[in-house]
């Protein structure tokens, strides 16, 4: 009688544990989440700083003149993040890429409009 209860008890425990483990397995890599959060937070901060420093209208003007690339490069170098940051600007049919590093994950995006024109800033921080 005791043996039966014993086995049943162990079986229940094992079943509960296995199902809980399976449920939790997908969120094991906390480090990945931390890195993801950190890189997106830095991207958001960089975008905010960029907008404060050079306003939206200026960004559009520089893009129209074809000088947005050097401006963004200067911004990244000034902030010491050039080696770990990539910015891809989509403006009309052009794609302007600035920065260095390895592209991974989804970027932080900022979509801006000026009349019927739009500009999409994609930013990755990969440190």
């Amino acid at each position, binding site marked *: 009688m*005791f043996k039966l209860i014993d086995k049943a008890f162990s079986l229940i425990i094992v079943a509960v544990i296995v199902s*809980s483990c399976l449920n939790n397995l997908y*969120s094991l890599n906390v480090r990945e989440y931390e890195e993801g959060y950190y890189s997106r937070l830095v991207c958001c901060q960089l*975008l905010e700083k960029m907008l404060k420093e050079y306003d939206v*209208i200026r960004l559009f003007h520089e893009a129209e003149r074809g000088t947005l690339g050097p401006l963004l490069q200067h911004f990244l170098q000034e902030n010491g993040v050039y080696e770990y940051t990539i910015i891809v600007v989509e403006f009309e049919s052009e794609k302007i890429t600035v920065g260095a590093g390895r592209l991974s994950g989804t970027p932080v995006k900022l*979509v*801006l409009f*000026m009349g019927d024109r739009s500009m999409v800033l994609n930013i990755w921080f990969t440190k």
Partner: protein
Amino acid sequence: MVQTTVVIIVFTILFSCTLAILGAKRQVANSYLLQEQYALAKNKILECRLNAAMDFLYTMDTVMLSKNNFSYDELLHFVEDKTFKRAYSDGFFSTFFEAHFSLKGSCDKRLDGLPEYDGTKFYVTLNYNISNLSGLNVCGEDSFYISCSLNFRLILDELEGAREFFESQLFSKFSEKLSKENVSEIVCEVTGLVKSLFNCDTIIENISVNENFVEVHYKLAYPTVYVSMFEEGVSNNIIVYYERPLRLEIS
């Protein structure tokens, strides 16, 4: 029997610890995810603010560069409360906003990311709805102010002041010494006074003198320069005018 129980207890403790660790890890991961979503949502709210302001200012710029003469009423209509809406997506986030622009307000939070001008302050109430494919849905209201390059209030006040002055002076001078012969002389005198006190030119379109009344059709013109906020180095010489026939009864 005892051995089995001990083994089970030990295993249970071990697995409980594993579960506790996994749970804690999951909580930490969730908190990172939440913070990340919060940062991204904050970024999208900033985007909403900027796009709302850009829509309003761009519309204003287009209108102000479209012609050279604006009536007082047109300008007045221009600074009346306005609402702008926009819905768009960046592939991951879907954004909708409705922004209300008004001259009235008391918010002292300026929108960063746009140049500061000495012109008119417009107060903005922004309602936004941001959602993404991860199930995030953020709705909210925000208020701030933006500035534009033209001082609408100054122009409207100047024209209003000049109109009041011109009409009251004509009334008082006509009531003092009106005769059909000196109508032009009085009008000319008052026109000179307006020019010296206000930044307005008075153009007399027509003066008609009848048996019972004098009708002065006048136009007050405020010349100014509109500097484009969006087109570099572009400005437009504009004239804001107020015109109407003024009828003065002869007793």
